[in-house]
Protein backbone atom coordinates (compact mmCIF):
# COMPACT_ATOMS: atom_id res chain seq x y z
CA UNK A 1 0.00 0.00 0.00
CA UNK A 2 2.73 2.44 0.98
CA UNK A 3 4.70 1.42 -2.06
CA UNK A 4 1.77 2.09 -4.32
CA UNK A 5 1.18 5.50 -2.79
CA UNK A 6 4.80 6.50 -3.23
CA UNK A 7 4.71 5.47 -6.86
CA UNK A 8 1.83 7.82 -7.66
CA UNK A 9 3.62 10.98 -6.55
CA UNK A 10 5.39 11.49 -9.90
CA UNK A 11 2.01 11.00 -11.56
CA UNK A 12 0.55 13.83 -9.51
CA UNK A 13 3.49 16.05 -10.38
CA UNK A 14 3.10 15.45 -14.11
CA UNK A 15 -0.66 15.87 -13.99
CA UNK A 16 -0.34 19.11 -12.05
CA UNK A 17 2.16 20.47 -14.56
CA UNK A 18 -0.17 19.61 -17.43
CA UNK A 19 -3.03 21.26 -15.55
CA UNK A 20 -0.90 24.37 -15.21
CA UNK A 21 -0.16 24.29 -18.93
CA UNK A 22 -3.89 24.11 -19.62
CA UNK A 23 -4.83 26.84 -17.19
CA UNK A 24 -2.03 29.30 -17.86
CA UNK A 25 -3.40 30.60 -21.18
CA UNK A 26 -6.77 31.23 -19.54
CA UNK A 27 -5.15 33.12 -16.69
CA UNK A 28 -3.25 35.12 -19.27
CA UNK A 29 -6.52 35.90 -20.99
CA UNK A 30 -8.21 36.88 -17.77
CA UNK A 31 -5.29 39.02 -16.66
CA UNK A 32 -5.02 40.81 -19.98
CA UNK A 33 -8.74 41.42 -20.17
CA UNK A 34 -8.63 43.24 -16.84
CA UNK A 35 -5.75 45.53 -17.73
CA UNK A 36 -6.05 49.16 -18.74
CA UNK A 37 -4.40 49.92 -22.12
CA UNK A 38 -1.31 51.33 -20.47
CA UNK A 39 -0.42 48.01 -18.87
CA UNK A 40 -1.13 45.63 -21.74
CA UNK A 41 2.24 45.90 -23.46
CA UNK A 42 4.35 45.91 -20.33
CA UNK A 43 7.33 43.62 -20.36
CA UNK A 44 7.87 41.53 -18.35
CA UNK A 45 4.30 40.31 -18.24
CA UNK A 46 2.50 41.01 -14.94
CA UNK A 47 -0.03 38.38 -13.98
CA UNK A 48 -1.88 40.65 -11.60
CA UNK A 49 -2.90 43.98 -13.11
CA UNK A 50 -1.91 46.99 -11.03
CA UNK A 51 -5.11 48.84 -11.87
CA UNK A 52 -7.68 46.19 -12.78
CA UNK A 53 -10.61 47.48 -14.77
CA UNK A 54 -13.79 46.15 -16.31
CA UNK A 55 -13.69 48.74 -19.08
CA UNK A 56 -12.66 46.14 -21.65
CA UNK A 57 -15.69 44.02 -20.85
CA UNK A 58 -17.90 47.06 -21.12
CA UNK A 59 -16.43 47.84 -24.51
CA UNK A 60 -16.85 44.26 -25.67
CA UNK A 61 -20.47 44.15 -24.64
CA UNK A 62 -21.49 47.52 -26.04
CA UNK A 63 -19.12 48.75 -28.74
CA UNK A 64 -18.37 45.30 -30.13
CA UNK A 65 -21.97 44.55 -29.26
CA UNK A 66 -21.48 41.06 -27.89
CA UNK A 67 -24.75 41.46 -26.04
CA UNK A 68 -26.45 41.52 -29.42
CA UNK A 69 -24.25 38.70 -30.62
CA UNK A 70 -25.27 36.57 -27.68
CA UNK A 71 -28.93 37.16 -28.39
CA UNK A 72 -28.42 36.37 -32.07
CA UNK A 73 -26.61 33.17 -31.22
CA UNK A 74 -29.39 32.08 -28.89
CA UNK A 75 -31.91 32.75 -31.66
CA UNK A 76 -30.09 30.10 -33.64
CA UNK A 77 -28.91 27.72 -30.95
CA UNK A 78 -32.17 27.28 -29.04
CA UNK A 79 -34.55 26.39 -31.87
CA UNK A 80 -31.91 24.32 -33.65
CA UNK A 81 -31.09 22.35 -30.51
CA UNK A 82 -34.55 21.88 -29.05
CA UNK A 83 -36.20 21.32 -32.38
CA UNK A 84 -33.54 18.76 -33.16
CA UNK A 85 -34.04 17.01 -29.82
CA UNK A 86 -37.74 16.66 -30.45
CA UNK A 87 -37.54 15.43 -34.03
CA UNK A 88 -34.61 13.15 -33.31
CA UNK A 89 -36.47 11.67 -30.34
CA UNK A 90 -39.55 10.89 -32.38
CA UNK A 91 -37.49 9.37 -35.16
CA UNK A 92 -35.20 7.54 -32.77
CA UNK A 93 -38.23 6.07 -31.01
CA UNK A 94 -39.75 4.92 -34.28
CA UNK A 95 -36.50 3.25 -35.34
CA UNK A 96 -35.96 1.65 -31.95
CA UNK A 97 -39.43 0.51 -30.96
CA UNK A 98 -42.02 0.65 -33.72
CA UNK A 99 -42.48 -1.91 -36.45
CA UNK A 100 -42.95 -0.76 -39.99
CA UNK A 101 -41.98 -1.96 -43.43
CA UNK A 102 -38.58 -0.72 -44.56
CA UNK A 103 -37.41 0.20 -41.11
CA UNK A 104 -33.96 -1.33 -41.30
CA UNK A 105 -33.29 -0.10 -44.82
CA UNK A 106 -34.31 3.44 -43.95
CA UNK A 107 -32.18 3.37 -40.86
CA UNK A 108 -29.19 2.16 -42.84
CA UNK A 109 -29.75 5.02 -45.29
CA UNK A 110 -29.76 7.47 -42.43
CA UNK A 111 -26.54 6.01 -41.06
CA UNK A 112 -24.93 6.28 -44.46
CA UNK A 113 -25.48 10.04 -44.46
CA UNK A 114 -23.34 10.24 -41.34
CA UNK A 115 -20.44 8.93 -43.38
CA UNK A 116 -20.70 11.60 -46.06
CA UNK A 117 -18.16 14.37 -45.62
CA UNK A 118 -20.09 17.56 -44.89
CA UNK A 119 -18.00 19.47 -47.35
CA UNK A 120 -19.82 17.82 -50.27
CA UNK A 121 -23.09 19.47 -49.30
CA UNK A 122 -21.58 22.85 -48.54
CA UNK A 123 -21.55 24.48 -51.95
CA UNK A 124 -24.92 23.27 -53.28
CA UNK A 125 -26.58 24.03 -49.96
CA UNK A 126 -25.35 27.56 -50.21
CA UNK A 127 -26.58 27.82 -53.79
CA UNK A 128 -29.94 26.42 -52.75
CA UNK A 129 -30.33 28.77 -49.79
CA UNK A 130 -29.22 31.67 -51.98
CA UNK A 131 -31.91 30.80 -54.53
CA UNK A 132 -34.69 30.74 -51.94
CA UNK A 133 -33.50 33.90 -50.27
CA UNK A 134 -32.36 32.34 -47.01
CA UNK A 135 -28.84 33.73 -47.14
CA UNK A 136 -28.24 36.29 -44.42
CA UNK A 137 -31.08 34.81 -42.38
CA UNK A 138 -30.79 32.28 -39.55
CA UNK A 139 -32.86 29.67 -41.34
CA UNK A 140 -29.94 27.79 -42.96
CA UNK A 141 -28.41 27.47 -39.51
CA UNK A 142 -31.63 26.37 -37.78
CA UNK A 143 -33.71 24.29 -40.15
CA UNK A 144 -31.33 21.42 -41.00
CA UNK A 145 -30.52 20.85 -37.34
CA UNK A 146 -34.10 21.29 -36.13
CA UNK A 147 -35.29 18.57 -38.53
CA UNK A 148 -33.12 16.13 -36.62
CA UNK A 149 -29.66 15.21 -37.76
CA UNK A 150 -28.66 11.65 -38.53
CA UNK A 151 -26.29 11.72 -35.57
CA UNK A 152 -28.94 12.89 -33.11
CA UNK A 153 -31.46 10.36 -34.45
CA UNK A 154 -28.89 7.63 -34.15
CA UNK A 155 -28.08 8.59 -30.56
CA UNK A 156 -31.72 8.66 -29.53
CA UNK A 157 -32.35 5.33 -31.20
CA UNK A 158 -29.48 3.79 -29.28
CA UNK A 159 -30.93 5.17 -26.09
CA UNK A 160 -34.46 3.98 -26.79
CA UNK A 161 -33.12 0.56 -27.70
CA UNK A 162 -31.99 0.28 -24.12
CA UNK A 163 -35.57 0.65 -22.86
CA UNK A 164 -36.99 -2.88 -22.56
CA UNK A 165 -39.59 -3.81 -25.16
CA UNK A 166 -41.80 -5.02 -22.34
CA UNK A 167 -42.26 -1.44 -21.08
CA UNK A 168 -43.54 -0.42 -24.48
CA UNK A 169 -45.75 -3.49 -24.65
CA UNK A 170 -47.12 -2.76 -21.21
CA UNK A 171 -48.05 0.71 -22.41
CA UNK A 172 -49.65 -0.81 -25.50
CA UNK A 173 -51.78 -3.12 -23.40
CA UNK A 174 -52.61 -0.26 -21.06
CA UNK A 175 -54.20 1.36 -24.08
CA UNK A 176 -51.63 3.98 -25.06
CA UNK A 177 -51.30 5.03 -28.70
CA UNK A 178 -47.80 5.33 -30.15
CA UNK A 179 -48.01 9.05 -29.53
CA UNK A 180 -49.09 8.57 -25.91
CA UNK A 181 -46.48 5.88 -25.44
CA UNK A 182 -43.92 8.38 -26.62
CA UNK A 183 -45.07 11.38 -24.62
CA UNK A 184 -46.11 9.64 -21.40
CA UNK A 185 -43.67 6.75 -21.13
CA UNK A 186 -40.67 6.96 -23.41
CA UNK A 187 -39.88 10.66 -23.52
CA UNK A 188 -39.79 11.08 -19.71
CA UNK A 189 -37.40 8.16 -19.51
CA UNK A 190 -35.11 9.75 -22.05
CA UNK A 191 -34.20 12.72 -19.90
CA UNK A 192 -30.54 11.81 -19.37
CA UNK A 193 -30.05 11.18 -23.08
CA UNK A 194 -31.88 14.38 -23.97
CA UNK A 195 -29.80 16.45 -21.59
CA UNK A 196 -26.60 14.96 -22.95
CA UNK A 197 -27.60 15.53 -26.53
CA UNK A 198 -28.96 18.99 -25.71
CA UNK A 199 -25.77 20.04 -23.98
CA UNK A 200 -23.69 18.98 -26.96
CA UNK A 201 -26.15 20.59 -29.35
CA UNK A 202 -26.00 23.90 -27.52
CA UNK A 203 -22.23 23.72 -27.42
CA UNK A 204 -21.98 23.03 -31.12
CA UNK A 205 -24.42 25.79 -32.03
CA UNK A 206 -22.83 28.32 -29.70
CA UNK A 207 -19.33 27.59 -30.95
CA UNK A 208 -20.22 27.27 -34.62
CA UNK A 209 -18.19 29.67 -36.66
CA UNK A 210 -18.11 28.22 -40.14
CA UNK A 211 -21.88 28.14 -40.61
CA UNK A 212 -22.50 31.80 -39.68
CA UNK A 213 -19.36 32.81 -41.59
CA UNK A 214 -20.86 31.36 -44.76
CA UNK A 215 -24.44 32.49 -44.29
CA UNK A 216 -24.56 35.64 -42.14
CA UNK A 217 -23.11 38.82 -43.53
CA UNK A 218 -25.06 41.71 -41.96
CA UNK A 219 -23.09 42.96 -38.96
CA UNK A 220 -26.18 43.30 -36.80
CA UNK A 221 -27.14 39.67 -37.44
CA UNK A 222 -23.77 38.20 -36.62
CA UNK A 223 -23.29 35.54 -33.97
CA UNK A 224 -21.03 35.97 -31.02
CA UNK A 225 -18.25 33.95 -32.62
CA UNK A 226 -18.35 36.07 -35.74
CA UNK A 227 -18.30 39.21 -33.66
CA UNK A 228 -15.27 38.28 -31.62
CA UNK A 229 -13.52 37.08 -34.76
CA UNK A 230 -14.14 40.43 -36.38
CA UNK A 231 -12.83 42.35 -33.35
CA UNK A 232 -9.44 41.32 -34.65
CA UNK A 233 -9.67 43.94 -37.33
CA UNK A 234 -11.37 46.74 -35.41
CA UNK A 235 -9.63 46.16 -32.09
CA UNK A 236 -6.37 44.57 -33.23
CA UNK A 237 -4.57 47.28 -31.33
CA UNK A 238 -6.51 46.59 -28.16
CA UNK A 239 -5.71 43.04 -27.10
CA UNK A 240 -7.42 43.64 -23.78
CA UNK A 241 -10.75 44.13 -25.50
CA UNK A 242 -10.10 41.06 -27.64
CA UNK A 243 -9.45 38.98 -24.56
CA UNK A 244 -12.49 40.35 -22.77
CA UNK A 245 -14.59 39.41 -25.78
CA UNK A 246 -13.10 35.93 -25.96
CA UNK A 247 -13.68 35.43 -22.28
CA UNK A 248 -17.29 36.46 -22.66
CA UNK A 249 -17.71 34.08 -25.58
CA UNK A 250 -16.33 31.20 -23.53
CA UNK A 251 -18.01 31.95 -20.24
CA UNK A 252 -21.51 30.52 -20.85
CA UNK A 253 -20.16 27.19 -22.03
CA UNK A 254 -17.60 26.90 -19.28
CA UNK A 255 -20.38 27.52 -16.77
CA UNK A 256 -22.65 25.04 -18.56
CA UNK A 257 -19.83 22.54 -18.55
CA UNK A 258 -19.13 22.93 -14.85
CA UNK A 259 -22.80 22.33 -14.04
CA UNK A 260 -23.52 19.62 -16.57
CA UNK A 261 -20.12 18.00 -16.43
CA UNK A 262 -21.53 14.55 -15.87
CA UNK A 263 -23.45 14.72 -19.13
CA UNK A 264 -20.44 15.93 -21.08
CA UNK A 265 -18.22 13.21 -19.72
CA UNK A 266 -20.81 10.46 -20.16
CA UNK A 267 -21.71 11.63 -23.63
CA UNK A 268 -18.11 11.54 -24.71
CA UNK A 269 -17.09 8.43 -22.87
CA UNK A 270 -19.96 6.32 -24.11
CA UNK A 271 -20.51 7.62 -27.60
CA UNK A 272 -17.68 9.94 -28.60
CA UNK A 273 -19.99 12.91 -29.10
CA UNK A 274 -18.18 16.08 -29.87
Amino acid at each position, binding site marked *: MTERRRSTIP*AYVVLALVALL*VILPFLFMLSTSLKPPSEVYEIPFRWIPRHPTLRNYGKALTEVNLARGTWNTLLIALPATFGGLLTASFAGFAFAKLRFPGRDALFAALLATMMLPG*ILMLIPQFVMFAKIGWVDTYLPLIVPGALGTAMATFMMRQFFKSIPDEIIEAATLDGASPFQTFTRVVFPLARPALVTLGVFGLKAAWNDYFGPLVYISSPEKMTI*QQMIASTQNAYGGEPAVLMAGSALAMLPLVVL*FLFAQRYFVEGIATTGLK
Partner: protein
Amino acid sequence: MVTPRFKGEAAWAYAFIAPPFVGFLVFALLPMLASFALSFTRYDILSPPELVGLDNYRDLFTSDYFVGRTLVNTAFYMLGVPLGMAVALAIATLLDRIARFRGFFRTVYFIPSVCSIVALALLWKLIYRGDYGLLNTLLVRLGIHDPPSWIADPRLVKPSLVFMGIWTNLGYTTVIFLAALQSVPRQLLEAAELDGAGAWQRFRHVVFPAISPTTFFVSVTGTIAALQNFDQVYVMTRGGPAYASATYMLYVYVSGFQYFEMGYASAMAWLLAIVVLVVTWLQFRLAKHWVFDD
Protein backbone atom coordinates in the same frame (compact mmCIF):
# COMPACT_ATOMS: atom_id res chain seq x y z
CA MET B 1 -47.95 -10.57 -42.40
CA VAL B 2 -47.18 -8.35 -39.47
CA THR B 3 -50.14 -7.51 -37.30
CA PRO B 4 -49.52 -4.09 -35.85
CA ARG B 5 -49.55 -3.75 -32.10
CA PHE B 6 -51.07 -0.32 -32.47
CA LYS B 7 -53.73 0.87 -34.78
CA GLY B 8 -51.83 2.42 -37.67
CA GLU B 9 -48.44 1.70 -36.18
CA ALA B 10 -46.63 2.06 -39.50
CA ALA B 11 -48.32 5.37 -40.26
CA TRP B 12 -47.27 6.76 -36.89
CA ALA B 13 -43.76 5.52 -37.49
CA TYR B 14 -43.49 7.17 -40.90
CA ALA B 15 -44.75 10.42 -39.44
CA PHE B 16 -42.16 10.17 -36.67
CA ILE B 17 -39.24 9.63 -39.01
CA ALA B 18 -40.39 12.11 -41.64
CA PRO B 19 -38.52 15.21 -40.40
CA PRO B 20 -35.01 13.74 -40.43
CA PHE B 21 -35.74 12.17 -43.78
CA VAL B 22 -36.95 15.37 -45.31
CA GLY B 23 -33.79 16.94 -43.92
CA PHE B 24 -31.74 14.11 -45.34
CA LEU B 25 -33.28 14.44 -48.79
CA VAL B 26 -33.25 18.21 -49.00
CA PHE B 27 -30.05 19.01 -47.17
CA ALA B 28 -27.88 16.00 -47.91
CA LEU B 29 -28.91 13.82 -50.81
CA LEU B 30 -29.99 16.52 -53.27
CA PRO B 31 -27.01 18.77 -52.45
CA MET B 32 -24.67 15.84 -52.93
CA LEU B 33 -26.07 15.07 -56.35
CA ALA B 34 -26.05 18.76 -57.17
CA SER B 35 -22.48 19.02 -56.01
CA PHE B 36 -21.48 16.29 -58.41
CA ALA B 37 -23.26 18.02 -61.27
CA LEU B 38 -21.86 21.43 -60.34
CA SER B 39 -18.33 20.11 -60.38
CA PHE B 40 -18.55 19.86 -64.15
CA THR B 41 -19.59 23.48 -64.58
CA ARG B 42 -18.38 26.99 -64.19
CA TYR B 43 -20.85 28.76 -61.95
CA ASP B 44 -20.90 32.02 -60.01
CA ILE B 45 -24.54 31.83 -58.80
CA LEU B 46 -25.49 35.05 -60.62
CA SER B 47 -25.29 33.70 -64.17
CA PRO B 48 -26.50 30.20 -65.04
CA PRO B 49 -23.98 27.36 -64.79
CA GLU B 50 -21.91 26.70 -67.85
CA LEU B 51 -20.93 23.14 -68.63
CA VAL B 52 -17.17 22.77 -68.85
CA GLY B 53 -16.75 19.01 -68.75
CA LEU B 54 -13.71 17.86 -66.85
CA ASP B 55 -12.00 21.24 -66.91
CA ASN B 56 -12.33 21.79 -63.18
CA TYR B 57 -10.80 18.42 -62.40
CA ARG B 58 -8.05 18.94 -64.97
CA ASP B 59 -7.15 22.28 -63.39
CA LEU B 60 -7.28 20.70 -59.96
CA PHE B 61 -4.73 18.06 -60.85
CA THR B 62 -2.48 19.91 -63.25
CA SER B 63 -2.32 23.66 -63.10
CA ASP B 64 -3.46 24.65 -59.64
CA TYR B 65 -0.41 25.09 -57.47
CA PHE B 66 -2.46 25.70 -54.34
CA VAL B 67 -4.16 22.33 -54.38
CA GLY B 68 -0.93 20.48 -53.78
CA ARG B 69 0.36 23.09 -51.42
CA THR B 70 -2.69 23.13 -49.19
CA LEU B 71 -2.99 19.34 -49.26
CA VAL B 72 0.59 19.05 -48.03
CA ASN B 73 -0.18 21.56 -45.28
CA THR B 74 -3.30 19.61 -44.33
CA ALA B 75 -1.24 16.43 -44.15
CA PHE B 76 1.09 18.22 -41.76
CA TYR B 77 -1.81 19.07 -39.46
CA MET B 78 -2.76 15.41 -39.47
CA LEU B 79 0.44 14.77 -37.55
CA GLY B 80 -1.32 16.35 -34.61
CA VAL B 81 -3.71 13.38 -34.45
CA PRO B 82 -1.24 10.64 -33.40
CA LEU B 83 0.76 13.09 -31.30
CA GLY B 84 -2.34 14.29 -29.47
CA MET B 85 -3.50 10.70 -28.97
CA ALA B 86 -0.15 9.68 -27.51
CA VAL B 87 -0.15 12.59 -25.07
CA ALA B 88 -3.80 12.03 -24.11
CA LEU B 89 -3.27 8.30 -23.60
CA ALA B 90 -0.24 8.99 -21.38
CA ILE B 91 -2.24 11.46 -19.29
CA ALA B 92 -5.24 9.14 -19.12
CA THR B 93 -2.95 6.33 -17.92
CA LEU B 94 -1.68 8.56 -15.14
CA LEU B 95 -5.22 9.63 -14.26
CA ASP B 96 -6.27 5.99 -14.14
CA ARG B 97 -3.55 5.27 -11.59
CA ILE B 98 -4.17 8.05 -9.13
CA ALA B 99 -6.71 7.76 -6.36
CA ARG B 100 -7.58 11.37 -5.63
CA PHE B 101 -8.28 14.53 -7.62
CA ARG B 102 -9.01 12.52 -10.74
CA GLY B 103 -12.24 14.43 -11.31
CA PHE B 104 -10.53 17.74 -10.69
CA PHE B 105 -7.81 17.12 -13.26
CA ARG B 106 -10.29 15.82 -15.77
CA THR B 107 -12.39 18.95 -15.37
CA VAL B 108 -9.41 21.25 -15.83
CA TYR B 109 -8.14 19.40 -18.89
CA PHE B 110 -11.53 19.45 -20.47
CA ILE B 111 -12.14 23.19 -20.31
CA PRO B 112 -10.48 24.02 -23.65
CA SER B 113 -12.70 21.43 -25.33
CA VAL B 114 -15.86 23.37 -24.53
CA CYS B 115 -14.44 26.71 -25.69
CA SER B 116 -14.97 27.96 -29.20
CA ILE B 117 -12.07 27.62 -31.58
CA VAL B 118 -12.48 31.30 -32.42
CA ALA B 119 -11.93 32.47 -28.85
CA LEU B 120 -9.05 30.06 -28.36
CA ALA B 121 -7.52 31.14 -31.63
CA LEU B 122 -7.60 34.78 -30.58
CA LEU B 123 -6.05 33.82 -27.28
CA TRP B 124 -3.27 31.77 -28.81
CA LYS B 125 -2.60 34.40 -31.39
CA LEU B 126 -1.77 36.70 -28.53
CA ILE B 127 0.30 34.05 -26.79
CA TYR B 128 2.30 33.42 -29.98
CA ARG B 129 2.89 37.10 -30.80
CA GLY B 130 6.50 37.82 -31.47
CA ASP B 131 6.79 41.13 -29.61
CA TYR B 132 4.81 41.02 -26.41
CA GLY B 133 3.25 37.58 -26.66
CA LEU B 134 3.11 35.54 -23.45
CA LEU B 135 5.29 32.75 -24.78
CA ASN B 136 8.13 35.00 -25.80
CA THR B 137 8.07 37.17 -22.69
CA LEU B 138 8.43 33.93 -20.70
CA LEU B 139 11.23 32.73 -22.96
CA VAL B 140 13.05 36.02 -22.61
CA ARG B 141 12.76 35.76 -18.89
CA LEU B 142 14.29 32.28 -19.10
CA GLY B 143 17.28 33.85 -20.84
CA ILE B 144 16.43 33.03 -24.45
CA HIS B 145 17.02 36.21 -26.36
CA ASP B 146 15.59 36.86 -29.75
CA PRO B 147 12.90 34.12 -29.66
CA PRO B 148 11.10 33.40 -32.94
CA SER B 149 7.83 35.05 -33.85
CA TRP B 150 5.99 31.72 -34.02
CA ILE B 151 2.96 32.07 -36.27
CA ALA B 152 4.50 34.86 -38.29
CA ASP B 153 7.33 32.52 -39.25
CA PRO B 154 6.53 30.34 -42.28
CA ARG B 155 8.66 27.50 -40.87
CA LEU B 156 7.12 27.54 -37.39
CA VAL B 157 3.51 28.42 -38.08
CA LYS B 158 2.34 24.85 -38.72
CA PRO B 159 4.03 23.25 -35.69
CA SER B 160 2.68 26.11 -33.59
CA LEU B 161 -0.83 25.48 -34.80
CA VAL B 162 -0.43 21.74 -34.26
CA PHE B 163 0.69 22.36 -30.70
CA MET B 164 -2.31 24.56 -30.05
CA GLY B 165 -4.56 21.92 -31.58
CA ILE B 166 -3.18 19.25 -29.26
CA TRP B 167 -3.66 21.59 -26.32
CA THR B 168 -7.27 22.22 -27.38
CA ASN B 169 -8.29 18.58 -27.85
CA LEU B 170 -6.31 17.14 -24.99
CA GLY B 171 -9.20 17.01 -22.54
CA TYR B 172 -11.65 15.48 -24.99
CA THR B 173 -9.29 12.71 -26.03
CA THR B 174 -8.18 12.11 -22.45
CA VAL B 175 -11.77 11.64 -21.28
CA ILE B 176 -12.35 9.04 -23.98
CA PHE B 177 -9.16 7.15 -23.19
CA LEU B 178 -9.77 7.34 -19.46
CA ALA B 179 -13.20 5.77 -19.89
CA ALA B 180 -11.68 3.02 -21.99
CA LEU B 181 -8.90 2.39 -19.49
CA GLN B 182 -11.36 2.21 -16.64
CA SER B 183 -13.32 -0.45 -18.44
CA VAL B 184 -10.31 -2.77 -18.75
CA PRO B 185 -11.16 -5.60 -16.36
CA ARG B 186 -8.99 -5.40 -13.23
CA GLN B 187 -8.78 -9.20 -13.02
CA LEU B 188 -7.12 -9.23 -16.41
CA LEU B 189 -4.39 -6.90 -15.18
CA GLU B 190 -4.02 -8.82 -11.94
CA ALA B 191 -3.78 -12.09 -13.84
CA ALA B 192 -1.07 -10.59 -16.05
CA GLU B 193 0.77 -9.34 -12.99
CA LEU B 194 0.64 -12.81 -11.44
CA ASP B 195 1.98 -14.18 -14.70
CA GLY B 196 4.99 -11.94 -14.14
CA ALA B 197 4.25 -9.21 -16.69
CA GLY B 198 5.92 -5.88 -15.95
CA ALA B 199 4.21 -2.54 -16.30
CA TRP B 200 5.13 -2.07 -19.94
CA GLN B 201 4.23 -5.66 -20.84
CA ARG B 202 0.87 -5.25 -19.15
CA PHE B 203 0.24 -2.13 -21.15
CA ARG B 204 1.46 -3.67 -24.39
CA HIS B 205 -0.30 -7.02 -24.11
CA VAL B 206 -3.36 -6.34 -21.96
CA VAL B 207 -4.27 -2.66 -21.88
CA PHE B 208 -3.49 -1.68 -25.44
CA PRO B 209 -5.45 -4.52 -27.06
CA ALA B 210 -8.35 -3.88 -24.70
CA ILE B 211 -8.61 -0.20 -25.60
CA SER B 212 -7.79 -0.65 -29.29
CA PRO B 213 -11.40 -0.05 -30.45
CA THR B 214 -11.31 3.31 -28.67
CA THR B 215 -7.92 4.14 -30.15
CA PHE B 216 -9.29 3.29 -33.56
CA PHE B 217 -12.38 5.44 -33.06
CA VAL B 218 -10.31 8.43 -31.93
CA SER B 219 -7.89 8.09 -34.81
CA VAL B 220 -10.61 7.81 -37.46
CA THR B 221 -12.71 10.72 -36.22
CA GLY B 222 -9.61 12.82 -35.47
CA THR B 223 -8.24 12.26 -38.94
CA ILE B 224 -11.51 13.16 -40.61
CA ALA B 225 -11.67 16.36 -38.54
CA ALA B 226 -8.04 17.21 -39.30
CA LEU B 227 -8.66 16.81 -43.02
CA GLN B 228 -11.38 19.45 -42.77
CA ASN B 229 -9.46 21.83 -40.47
CA PHE B 230 -10.64 25.37 -41.05
CA ASP B 231 -11.68 27.58 -38.09
CA GLN B 232 -8.35 27.64 -36.32
CA VAL B 233 -6.31 28.55 -39.37
CA TYR B 234 -8.86 31.00 -40.71
CA VAL B 235 -8.99 33.01 -37.50
CA MET B 236 -5.32 32.86 -36.61
CA THR B 237 -3.50 33.27 -39.86
CA ARG B 238 -5.92 33.35 -42.79
CA GLY B 239 -3.52 30.79 -44.22
CA GLY B 240 -0.46 33.01 -43.96
CA PRO B 241 2.30 33.85 -43.84
CA ALA B 242 2.79 33.24 -47.55
CA TYR B 243 0.20 30.45 -47.56
CA ALA B 244 2.42 28.45 -45.23
CA SER B 245 -0.51 27.51 -42.98
CA ALA B 246 -3.37 27.42 -45.50
CA THR B 247 -5.42 24.22 -45.34
CA TYR B 248 -7.27 22.64 -48.21
CA MET B 249 -10.60 23.42 -46.53
CA LEU B 250 -9.61 27.07 -46.34
CA TYR B 251 -8.88 27.00 -50.02
CA VAL B 252 -12.28 25.48 -50.76
CA TYR B 253 -13.87 28.25 -48.73
CA VAL B 254 -11.94 30.97 -50.52
CA SER B 255 -12.75 29.52 -53.94
CA GLY B 256 -16.42 29.14 -53.17
CA PHE B 257 -17.33 32.02 -50.95
CA GLN B 258 -14.82 34.71 -51.82
CA TYR B 259 -14.30 34.11 -55.53
CA PHE B 260 -17.72 32.49 -56.03
CA GLU B 261 -16.27 29.76 -58.20
CA MET B 262 -18.97 27.34 -57.20
CA GLY B 263 -18.20 24.79 -59.89
CA TYR B 264 -14.54 24.67 -59.10
CA ALA B 265 -15.15 24.60 -55.36
CA SER B 266 -17.51 21.64 -55.88
CA ALA B 267 -14.81 19.76 -57.73
CA MET B 268 -12.43 20.57 -54.88
CA ALA B 269 -14.97 19.31 -52.38
CA TRP B 270 -15.23 16.01 -54.24
CA LEU B 271 -11.48 15.63 -54.24
CA LEU B 272 -11.39 16.14 -50.47
CA ALA B 273 -14.35 13.82 -49.94
CA ILE B 274 -12.53 11.13 -51.87
CA VAL B 275 -9.38 11.72 -49.86
CA VAL B 276 -11.42 11.41 -46.66
CA LEU B 277 -13.02 8.18 -47.85
CA VAL B 278 -9.72 6.67 -48.97
CA VAL B 279 -7.95 7.58 -45.73
CA THR B 280 -10.83 6.20 -43.69
CA TRP B 281 -10.92 3.04 -45.78
CA LEU B 282 -7.18 2.60 -45.28
CA GLN B 283 -7.62 2.97 -41.55
CA PHE B 284 -10.31 0.32 -41.54
CA ARG B 285 -8.07 -1.99 -43.56
CA LEU B 286 -5.17 -1.48 -41.18
CA ALA B 287 -7.49 -1.89 -38.21
CA LYS B 288 -7.72 -5.62 -38.93
CA HIS B 289 -4.13 -5.96 -37.78
CA TRP B 290 -4.33 -4.15 -34.50
CA VAL B 291 -7.90 -3.60 -33.36
CA PHE B 292 -9.42 -6.31 -31.19
CA ASP B 293 -13.12 -5.90 -31.30
CA ASP B 294 -15.40 -8.43 -29.73
